[in-house]
């Protein structure tokens, strides 16, 4: 595996360049098309009545006064069909897994504050909300439990009396023996904080059932339109051929929009009950904080043994993840615990591993995928262990990591959880990060300040491996009834020589229209400006699982590349026939056919495309008209992306306030398709990680009321908090058609560990609990 040096491509290729994004112009002039912007004639608006209680039996729902109000067009509750007969059940074949039935509208019991109970339909959102106030619900309170590590007084689901929905043990080697022989044994309890993805655009959907042909159209801000269509067909008893799901422009997702929610199904069902009427629901932020998926509410009990030279000998862990009230659809309650247990040891060599993970239901909003899935917390746990082992052994925090890294010589490295690491370039990332950070200068300044009254400074380091672009083997772990290893792409040269791509990828800001256009432009040999990419529409693309697991550049990009190459081959074959020149002497570049060695092109792609579509009489025998190809791609395994972050901060010891001084990140993104987009993904992910490390915390009180229900309480960092960042790259191509490694999530993995490590370094206090707020630091100092 040779490193690619230099980012700029030679020649006219667009891959490797920060070309102007295709999305930008419409966004900048206010002409994006988000779901909430959709204005269909006769639209009716939905507002949901949500439970004010975290756990209660519903004795009655009285909608009679609401029905009498002339501004209320319709009210739906879960007591009647079709709502009552359908529930969201995430499926997995894992042995200990217990399914939960999440109602579309709760009717017998509510299990978290914010759970939808009834839907009111009116001509506008104001009137629909007025209608909510006329509904009377009689509840019988049940004891609520929001902590996954306390004994519940009342189980949420009768199928799981202890609230445990899944337990799985990862085992390799002999931990007991290895710990007995260890020079140093570290034991820690580490807790990470509940957060939410909080894309700036909340959830939204518009559903329209057309009575003329029995079709359902669903415009949704979803990351996974094909999965949504598949699920809606099953849940609503409809043919997939009669459902079209469209994800237009989507204002951020981060995993939050990768779930199918009860509200989504409810508005589709309402649309079918009100044929011909567009049904629109636009969530507000208060609803979002209450009822969109949460994440990262975990506890790690870790025991690790090290030899005297700092070698990690054994790792034993007990991981509990608070998965909320239901097993999230369709990903299951296993999404966080399985990821936490599968990748806890990170970029370090390890033979002896014994890790029990469990998913525990509580009276809180269901936990779902959120950028980095579990690893911001698991990296925090692993790096805390590394830092403490270094301290106990009198080593530097850098040296102990060097000692344990999986290296290029170990590749392919089978982790104790049987995942196969194909990277091994952690030490190179660390070296480059240290160079950009300038550790020597930092240590000098730290030493100098120690003799003064100036605020103490500290530095922290996080090393991580992000499993990206998971193929069918790597995505097998959760044993769901689908394997997310593949995507399809269709590439079509139009009769005028321009190119239209129908890709199964989706975009929530990652610029996939741009990235896919760059790949196809180079794959065929045409100008980037001549390629248009259509995404997010189940009637246009054949198949795509969507945006999650940093998979789309690898898998959707791979499919685009393969399709483009097939089309290119056909163009060259046809050109060869028309010119009567051997195919091996022909080159397709800049939309023109050149004969090798000549200075002028012989034919334009437009001339060839015209023959392909309009003059079949000139086609060679056996060649079909048209210039189009559809290909799937599945990388089978995945592409590990190595990453290292180093940050420094100073602490005001009188207040506990933290000021970040410097932040460096080096990632191996493999071959970079668009450097601006890649850096944008890394920077945005780091900012989210810093938010989670220091500010963002969804807090329930003991009764299960969310006490951080607005953005005045749930603090998303602003330009005032996020530091400048220095981002460096390594480019070791991965084993896939483009050589790319996913880069969407890695940035979130470092900040918890960096901040916790830096505070420990500055003040000599151990951070066991996140977030690291001013208050927590101040308390730690007392």
């Amino acid at each position, binding site marked *: 595996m040779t490193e690619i040096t230099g980012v700029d491509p030679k020649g006219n290729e667009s891959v490797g360049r920060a070309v102007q994004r295709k999305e*930008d112009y419409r966004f*900048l002039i206010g002409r*994006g098309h988000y779901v909430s912007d959709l204005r269909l004639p006769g639209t009716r608006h939905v507002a949901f009545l949500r439970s004010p209680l975290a756990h209660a039996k519903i004795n009655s729902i009285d909608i009679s006064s609401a029905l009498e109000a002339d501004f209320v067009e319709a009210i739906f509750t879960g007591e009647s069909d079709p709502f009552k007969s359908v529930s969201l059940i995430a499926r997995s074949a894992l042995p200990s897994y217990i399914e939960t039935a999440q109602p579309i509208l709760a009717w017998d019991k509510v299990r978290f504050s914010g759970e939808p109970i009834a839907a009111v339909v009116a001509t506008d959102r*104001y009137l629909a909300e007025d209608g909510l106030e006329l509904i009377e619900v009689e509840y019988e309170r049940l004891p609520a439990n929001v902590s996954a590590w306390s004994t519940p007084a009342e189980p949420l689901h009768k199928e799981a009396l202890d609230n445990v929905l899944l337990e799985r043990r990862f085992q390799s080697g002999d931990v007991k023996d290895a710990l007995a022989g260890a020079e140093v044994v570290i034991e820690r309890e580490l807790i990470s904080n509940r957060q939410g993805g909080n894309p700036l655009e909340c959830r939204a959907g518009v559903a329209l059932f057309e009575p003329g042909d029995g079709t359902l159209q669903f415009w949704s801000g979803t990351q996974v339109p094909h999965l949504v269509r598949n699920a809606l067909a099953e849940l609503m008893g409809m043919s997939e051929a009669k459902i079209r799901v469209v994800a237009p422009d989507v204002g*951020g997702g981060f995993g939050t929009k990768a779930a199918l929610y009860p509200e989504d199904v409810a508005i589709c069902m309402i649309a079918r009950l009100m044929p011909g009427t567009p049904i629109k629901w636009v969530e507000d932020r208060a609803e979002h904080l209450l009822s969109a998926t949460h994440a990262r509410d975990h506890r790690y009990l870790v025991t690790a043994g090290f030899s005297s030279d700092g070698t990690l000998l054994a790792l034993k862990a007990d991981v509990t993840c608070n998965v909320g009230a239901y097993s999230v659809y369709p990903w299951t309650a296993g999404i966080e615990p399985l990821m936490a247990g599968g990748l806890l040891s990170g970029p370090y060599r390890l033979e002896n591993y014994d890790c029990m993970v469990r998913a525990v239901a509580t009276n809180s909003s269901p936990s779902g995928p959120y950028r980095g899935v579990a690893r911001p917390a698991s990296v925090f746990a692993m790096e805390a262990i590394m830092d403490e082992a270094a301290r106990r052994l009198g080593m530097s925090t850098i040296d102990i990591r060097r000692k344990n890294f999986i290296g290029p010589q170990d590749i392919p490295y089978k982790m104790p959880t049987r995942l196969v690491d194909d990277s091994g370039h952690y030490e190179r990332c660390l070296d480059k990060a240290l160079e950009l950070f300038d550790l020597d200068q930092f240590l000098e300044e730290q030493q100098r300040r120690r003799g003064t009254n100036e605020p103490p400074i500290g530095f922290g380091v996080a090393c991580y491996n992000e499993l990206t672009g998971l193929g069918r083997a790597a995505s097998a772990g959760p044993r769901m009834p689908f394997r997310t290893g593949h995507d399809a792409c269709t590439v079509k040269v139009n009769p005028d020589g321009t190119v239209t791509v129908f890709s199964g990828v989706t975009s929530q*800001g990652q610029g996939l229209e741009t990235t896919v256009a760059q790949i196809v432009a180079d794959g065929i040999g045409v100008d980037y400006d001549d390629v248009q990419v259509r995404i997010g529409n189940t009637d246009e693309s054949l198949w795509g699982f969507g945006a999650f697991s940093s998979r789309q550049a690898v898998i959707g990009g791979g499919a685009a590349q393969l399709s483009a190459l097939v089309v290119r081959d056909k163009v060259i074959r046809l050109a060869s026939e028309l010119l009567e020149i051997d195919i091996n002497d022909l080159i397709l570049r800049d939309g023109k056919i050149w004969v090798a060695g000549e200075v002028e092109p012989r034919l334009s792609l437009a001339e060839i495309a015209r023959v392909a579509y309009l003059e079949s009489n000139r086609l060679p025998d056996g060649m079909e008209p048209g210039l189009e190809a559809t290909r799937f791609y599945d990388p089978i395994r995945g592409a590990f992306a190595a990453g290292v972050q180093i940050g420094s901060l100073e602490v005001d010891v009188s207040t506990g306030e933290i000021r970040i001084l410097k932040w460096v990140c080096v990632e191996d993104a493999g071959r970079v398709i668009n450097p601006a987009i890649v850096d*944008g993904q890394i*920077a*945005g992910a780091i900012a989210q990680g810093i938010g989670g490390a220091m500010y963002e915390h969804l807090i329930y009180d003991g009764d299960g009321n969310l006490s951080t229900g607005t953005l005045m309480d749930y603090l998303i960092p*602003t330009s005032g908090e996020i530091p400048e960042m220095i981002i460096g790259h390594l480019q070791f191509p991965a084993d896939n058609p483009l050589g790319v490694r996913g880069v969407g999530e890695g940035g979130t993995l470092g900040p918890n560990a960096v901040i916790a490590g830096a505070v420990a370094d500055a003040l000599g206090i151990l951070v066991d609990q996140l977030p690291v707020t001013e208050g927590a630091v101040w308390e730690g100092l007392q």
Partner: protein
Amino acid sequence: MRVTLSVNGKPATIDVEPRRTLADALREDLGLTGTHLGCEHGVCGACTVMLDGLPVRACLVLAVQAEGASLLTVEGLAGEDGALHPLQQSFTEHHALQCGFCTPGMLISALDLLNRIPNPTRAEIRSEMSGNICRCTGYNSITDAILAAARSLTQKD
């Protein structure tokens, strides 16, 4: 209630309930969906528009309060010929937008910033722009874009 106002230089009249927010009036009654709603409680800044030359959160202003006012929304930034405003141009050149949802509010707040402080420092930009949340970029590219736009605008003067 009847409200007469000017939006992006053009007169407009709408008939709204007193409780209707300016943001909803712009989006639903005038079809100007470029102004986005991210929180509806005045924190995120996505719905920021200019009202008589000053930035306001359109989710916290009632449409009736805009009687007689002159509004500028994101749709009014580019030229009649579609040419981007220097801030818009700078945002695309510096990759200062990803999903585009915060962008309208960012642009209007940045315009207000440059109206008041034509040559801001990075620290001033960070402080002044801290009323607008972006969940995608991590803000550094937005700071770069505003700094570069300030330079290009002051060089023109």
